[in-house]
């Protein structure tokens, strides 16, 4: 039986019960709770709920992403049956180790494990593809795959046969293999590669170090290793990787095909391996690579590319004869030859074979590894080879191709011309059609119509090319449009609209008309003609519906219908019409899925499909109920785009599609917040592609802008992952890109404002790191750029906003660093700018928000600097700003909570002048009901009081800081003019807190002020009793009680029902010794604890000790309750209005002493 006097803790009971097996619980609780059946039941219920809490509160109110842990592998780790012994290689995606297999047999193997952080879905898929590819291959010249698995952290790995051998060139040299032997070994290499190609695997990185020779029973066996790595990595070639290669003297570029060196660099097929095989053969034969390693390394990147793409290497036989003497001898010795025989050993047939493999144009190379192999074998068998010297015609063609002119600028000029041409063609075609009956020769007519149609098609094609090349860039881009762009778009719009109208009444409308209609809608949307854009899109959908009904197999029209729907989702999204948006999205998805089923899609249709899927994914990502759909759409889009690019690696628009798809995949993962690594890797991939695209086409600004915006988002992810240094690096990179962009395209305000924004963030970061000097540089650049931006492009909203934010933050930091003056200058600039903005754009609510922020800060700063008059005048501005914001909000039909509105004003308001102004405005405000006005006014008054007390406090703080107590008088005396009587009144009693010696003087001053105030205004302000109460709460108060009493009586006359007025009088009565009158006043209402203490003191003085004690106890109880309530209220009120507990407690102790003293 538990001791009933000990309070039983519910928490302990519940937790103890939870630890028991269910059967033992009842007995335990009976023992602990005794007869308390309620408690037993209660505990059991809690236990039940603890055990069956299900998903309740499982996740925080706002979901937080799990910290991604890095679970890398290291030497000594055991993965499954393998122990990692030594790292032998590392690529972008994985690490290769020598590992020891423990069972069933003890042997050494090569183990490749994916790197932590690379386990995004797409990388995993490719890793898996590589593993499967290797598993598919079964060839004695290819290292075998033995096993696969995943680490305990879910990273996949696979195990391969460990090949310990020498690079083929080294092996041949060391064992002095002759030309024929070398060629025989090379045949084995070709066999391995041919086998791989048959399995659809491209090696991409054939070089001696990947072609090893081991001895098996004394017989050399070729083993090709590192298969499919480059392909699986899918790493576009970049300057960086090449330099890395060079620096590590891997010599990779020496074996790279010209197409591998293309910067868009994804155009790789099996013929790339043929080229590399050619290089390998060249080296095996001559002892050196076609291009001199040193020379390549000396030349810059561009020069290197040029050499490999354009220069013809010396024929092998030529190379051998031109070798320097020493080298020639060495090479000859290594082939078991002397100088002379070596020179002759390389026959012209061998030259042809090698050169055919090394053709710049892959169409002219051997079509397959077996083709090469067979030719080599023909040579070895002394049969005529198929390879032959290249013709002159071919050489001429090659020359012409070398001089591709850049049409970037010409293109823009041409576009106008093309539009003109198009229009005439179009008119002509119509004219011809109209004259149909009049023309005699039907043949001629048909011919003309056909010709016209051809010309129309050509013109259509041309303008579409132009559009895709330039205008689509402007349309997809959020930047403002320059005059030229606007003009182009308008012209294009006119053209497209005409084209769209030129739709013969056939049941099958021309696709061109569809495209035109779509483009016209997109342009309309871009130009802000939302209604027209909507109409266009709807018309398109309707037309497509008709076509689809009569011919469901027409994919193009359906794709354009999806595009039109997606365009509409955009419009709905902007209007917040989510339901409509979702409906459209669902329709698009089912359409896309249907289309994707088809096997006969053209590349362009697949591109459109990918684009639609990607837009759909972006549209759906924020919609919770469609998360799965959004994911599928994004993955589908990436997958489609990837296969397109793989198939036609050099196609610019396919690469754009892939970059876009990956980008929206990255954004999707970012948005959901849980797949940070996936987001990063998709972004990284996308960014790489954009970079190549930008290099390929310097005028394609989307490529740069996209990189910048990717970096911006990557920075967010990195911040989430707390990878601060990388985040910082990403911002720096973004900053660099945007700076470059702004130099190249100075007319785009959007990017300037983005640059401003990133500079702001960098400044922030530097501030955090404590590099204030560096931060200053960023701040200055940021403010300068944005300042000139808003001057040059006053209509750019983003620029205004960013500037406002930057000034706000800059001031914040300057102030934090103690540079009050600089902070003030910055804020002054902000004040001036925002005044301008709000005047010019009265409907932009956000500007008011910023204005309010800046003015609030400025008011605070002025107050801190004791510049009260300035603070007051800024506060009025602040008030106006708040009021304007309210108006703008009402215009925007957004209902704004009046409390927050007045609240935000009141925080900054600390002067009577402002207060009056504020009341005036409140009363003039017709949107607020009279009832509400009263309520607001009250609230406002409360805020005001609190603020004024704060003014007083900050005045004191200031003095404390300056350690100049005596100056207070001067300041406060001056204050009476600037602060106004009211503030002064409140401020004065506070002085006592630290300057008790001048107590009397202070009180006298207060009284003077009070009287002055009473004289000045006929009506006492409603809040004056508070002042009196503050003074009367302390015994030390009152040098001239009679005068104060007179004021109090007058106050109560004016406000007979006001509790505070009554209280003030009662307290003053008590302080002046008129206890009986005080008692009479207070006995009416004893609920107020403050009054209770005063009353008990008065009663004690009057001799009624019993009642005095009673009142005292009652008041004490109230006080305790009050304390408890405050605690409770603190938990759920933003800022509970605090009863003056200090005063109460002081009164309590004063009363308890008084009661003891008066004790008979």
């Amino acid at each position, binding site marked *: 039986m538990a001791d009933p006097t000990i309070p039983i803790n519910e*928490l302990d009971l*519940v*937790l103890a019960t*939870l630890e028991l097996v269910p059967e033992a619980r009842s007995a335990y609780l009976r023992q602990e709770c005794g007869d308390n059946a309620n408690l037993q039941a209660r505990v059991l219920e*809690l*236990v039940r*709920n*603890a055990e069956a*809490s299900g998903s*309740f*509160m499982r*996740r*925080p*109110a*706002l*979901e*937080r992403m799990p910290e991604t842990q890095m679970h890398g592998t290291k030497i000594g780790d055991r993965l499954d049956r393998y122990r990692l012994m030594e790292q032998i290689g590392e690529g972008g995606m994985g690490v290769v180790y020598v590992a020891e297999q423990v069972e069933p047999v003890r042997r050494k193997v090569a183990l490749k494990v994916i790197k932590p952080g690379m386990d995004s879905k797409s990388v995993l898929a490719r890793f898996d593809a590589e593993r499967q590819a290797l598993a598919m291959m079964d060839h004695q010249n290819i290292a075998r795959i033995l096993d696969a698995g995943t680490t305990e952290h879910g990273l996949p790995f696979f195990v391969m046969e460990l090949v310990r051998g020498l690079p083929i060139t080294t092996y041949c040299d060391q064992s002095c293999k002759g030309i024929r032997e070398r060629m025989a070994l090379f045949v084995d290499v070709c066999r391995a590669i041919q086998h791989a190609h048959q399995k659809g695997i491209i090696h991409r990185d054939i070089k001696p170090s990947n072609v090893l020779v081991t001895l098996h029973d004394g017989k050399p066996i070729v083993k090709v290793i590192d298969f499919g790595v480059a392909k699986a990595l899918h790493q576009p070639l970049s300057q960086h990787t090449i330099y890395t290669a060079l620096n590590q003297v891997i010599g990779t570029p020496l074996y790279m095909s010209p197409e591998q060196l293309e910067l868009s660099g994804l155009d790789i097929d099996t013929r790339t391996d043929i080229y590399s095989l050619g290089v390998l053969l060249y080296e095996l034969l001559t002892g050196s690579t076609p291009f001199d390693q040193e020379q390549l390394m000396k030349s810059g990147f561009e020069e290197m590319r040029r050499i490999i793409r354009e220069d013809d290497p010396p024929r092998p036989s030529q190379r051998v004869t031109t070798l320097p003497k020493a080298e020639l001898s060495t090479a000859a010795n290594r082939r078991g030859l002397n100088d002379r025989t070596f020179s002759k050993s390389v026959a012209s047939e061998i030259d042809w074979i090698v050169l055919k493999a090394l053709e710049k144009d892959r169409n002219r190379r051997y079509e397959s590894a077996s083709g090469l192999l067979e030719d080599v074998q023909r040579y070895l068998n002394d049969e005529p080879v198929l390879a032959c010297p290249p013709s002159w015609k071919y050489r001429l063609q090659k020359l012409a191709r070398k001089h591709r002119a850049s049409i970037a600028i010409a293109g823009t000029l041409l576009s106008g011309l093309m539009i003109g041409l198009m229009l005439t063609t179009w008119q002509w075609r119509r004219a011809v059609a109209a004259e149909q009956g009049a023309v005699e020769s039907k043949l001629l007519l048909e011919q003309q119509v056909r010709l016209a149609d051809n010309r129309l098609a050509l013109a259509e094609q041309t303008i579409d090319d132009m559009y895709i090349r330039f205008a689509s860039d402007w349309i997809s881009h959020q930047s403002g449009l320059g005059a030229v762009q606007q003009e182009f778009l308008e012209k294009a719009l006119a053209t497209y609209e005409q084209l769209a109208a030129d739709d013969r009444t056939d049941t099958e409308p021309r696709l061109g008309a569809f495209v035109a209609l779509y483009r016209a809608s997109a342009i309309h949307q871009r130009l802000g003609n939302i209604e027209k854009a909507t109409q266009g899109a709807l018309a398109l959908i309707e037309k497509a519906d008709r076509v689809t009904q009569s011919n469901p197999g027409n994919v193009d029209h359906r794709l354009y219908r999806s595009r039109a729907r997606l365009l509409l989702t955009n419009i709905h999204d902007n*209007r*917040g*019409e989510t339901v409509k948006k979702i409906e459209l999205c669902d329709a698009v998805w089912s359409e896309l899925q249907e289309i994707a089923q088809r096997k006969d899609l053209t590349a362009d249709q697949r591109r459109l499909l990918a684009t639609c899927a990607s837009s759909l994914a972006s549209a759906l*990502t*924020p919609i*919770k109920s469609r998360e799965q759909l959004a994911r599928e759409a994004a993955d589908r889009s990436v997958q489609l785009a990837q296969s397109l690019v793989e198939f036609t690696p050099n196609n610019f628009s396919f690469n754009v599609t892939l970059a876009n798809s990956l980008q929206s995949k990255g*954004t999707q993962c*970012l*948005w*959901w*917040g849980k797949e940070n690594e996936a987001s990063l890797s998709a972004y990284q991939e996308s960014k790489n592609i954009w970079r190549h695209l930008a290099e390929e086409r310097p005028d394609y600004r989307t490529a740069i802008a996209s990189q910048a*915006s990717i970096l*911006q*988002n990557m920075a*967010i992810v990195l*911040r*989430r992952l707390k990878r601060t240094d990388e985040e910082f690096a990403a911002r720096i990179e973004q900053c660099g890109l945007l700076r470059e962009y702004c130099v190249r395209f100075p007319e785009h305000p959007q990017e300037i404002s983005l640059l401003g924004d990133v500079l702001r963030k960098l400044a922030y970061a530097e501030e*955090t790191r*404590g590099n204030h000097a560096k931060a200053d540089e960023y701040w200055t650049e940021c403010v300068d750029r944005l300042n000139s931006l808003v001057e040059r492009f006053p209509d750019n909203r983003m620029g205004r906003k960013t500037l406002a*934010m930057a000034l706000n933050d800059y001031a*914040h930091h300057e102030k*934090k660093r103690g540079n009050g003056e600089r902070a003030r200058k910055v804020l002054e600039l902000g004040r001036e700018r925002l005044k301008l903005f709000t005047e010019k754009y009265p409907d932009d609510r*956000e500007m008011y928000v910023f204005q309010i*922020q800046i003015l*609030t*800060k400025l*008011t*605070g*700063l002025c*107050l801190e600097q004791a510049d009260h008059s300035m603070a007051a005048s800024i506060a009025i501005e602040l008030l106006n700003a708040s009021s304007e914001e309210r108006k703008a909000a009402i215009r*925007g*039909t*957004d209902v704004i909570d009046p409390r927050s509105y007045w609240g935000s004003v009141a925080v900054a308001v600390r002067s009577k002048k402002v207060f009056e102004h504020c009341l005036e405005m409140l009363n003039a405000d017709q949107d607020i009901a009279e009832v509400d006005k009263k309520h607001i006014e009250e609230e406002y008054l409360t805020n005001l009081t609190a603020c004024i007390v704060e003014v007083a406090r*900050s005045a004191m*703080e200031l003095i404390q800081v300056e350690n100049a107590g005596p100056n207070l008088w001067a300041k406060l005396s001056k204050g009476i003019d600037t602060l106004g009587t009211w503030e002064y009144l409140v401020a004065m009693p506070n002085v006592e807190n630290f300057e008790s010696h001048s107590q009397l003087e202070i009180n006298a001053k207060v009284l003077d002020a009070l009287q002055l105030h009473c004289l000045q205004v006929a009506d006492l302000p409603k809040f004056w009793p508070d002042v009196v109460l503050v003074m009367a709460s302390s015994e030390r108060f009152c040098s001239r009680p009679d005068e104060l009493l007179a004021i109090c009586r007058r106050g109560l006359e004016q406000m007979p029902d006001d509790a505070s007025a009554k209280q003030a009088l009662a307290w003053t009565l008590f302080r002046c010794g008129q206890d009986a009158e005080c008692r009479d006043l207070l006995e009416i209402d004893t609920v107020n604890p403050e009054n209770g203490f005063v009353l008990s003191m008065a009663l004690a003085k009057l001799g009624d000790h019993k009642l005095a004690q009673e009142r005292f106890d009652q008041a004490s109880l109230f006080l305790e309750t009050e304390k408890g309530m405050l605690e*409770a209220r*603190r*938990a*759920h009120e*933003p*800022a*509970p209005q*605090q009863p003056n507990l200090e005063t109460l407690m002081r009164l309590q102790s004063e009363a308890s002493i008084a009661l003891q003293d008066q004790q008979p």
Partner: protein
Amino acid sequence: MTDVTYLLDRIEAGDQKAAAELFPLVYDELRRLAQWKLADEKPGNTLQPTALVNEVYVRMVGVKQGLNFKSRSGFLSAASEAMRHILVDAARRKLTRKHGGDVERMELEVDRILVQHPKEVLDVHTALDALAEHNVQCAELVKLHYFGGYSIAEVADVMNISRATANRWWIYARAWLKTAIESH
């Protein structure tokens, strides 16, 4: 204007009122930051309470050395409370929307905060006050963990209790709240 660091110093010195004064400042900053964050970036941004609170902390307090335990806890507590208000606001709006609220209305950016289960948020919010009357510390723990987004381990550090205790309290508090909500 009252400076946060000043308030924190006062909390450090044991001033009870300072903690209450801190709240509106943190609240404003949080709201503003949340708003900026949402306005700032392209679509693709979810708010993280901890990240927000931490950022506010850095913005308002800076990486001030030597800030003692008490004032840091004070700040995090105030910030979690502020976060609670923001979330409850968002949850309320979300629920009103669902019940045929005015969808056409222009959305404040802060409304884009994704509260996954608004009903639960509001229920917990209401019941939490009752829990606070019953057991202040458990309520504080719920506030930091559920609304502030801190892990139980982090909360234990902030509240200066062992992780085991924090876990036990959490089990109890959740059962308590569930009971309270269900009986309502």
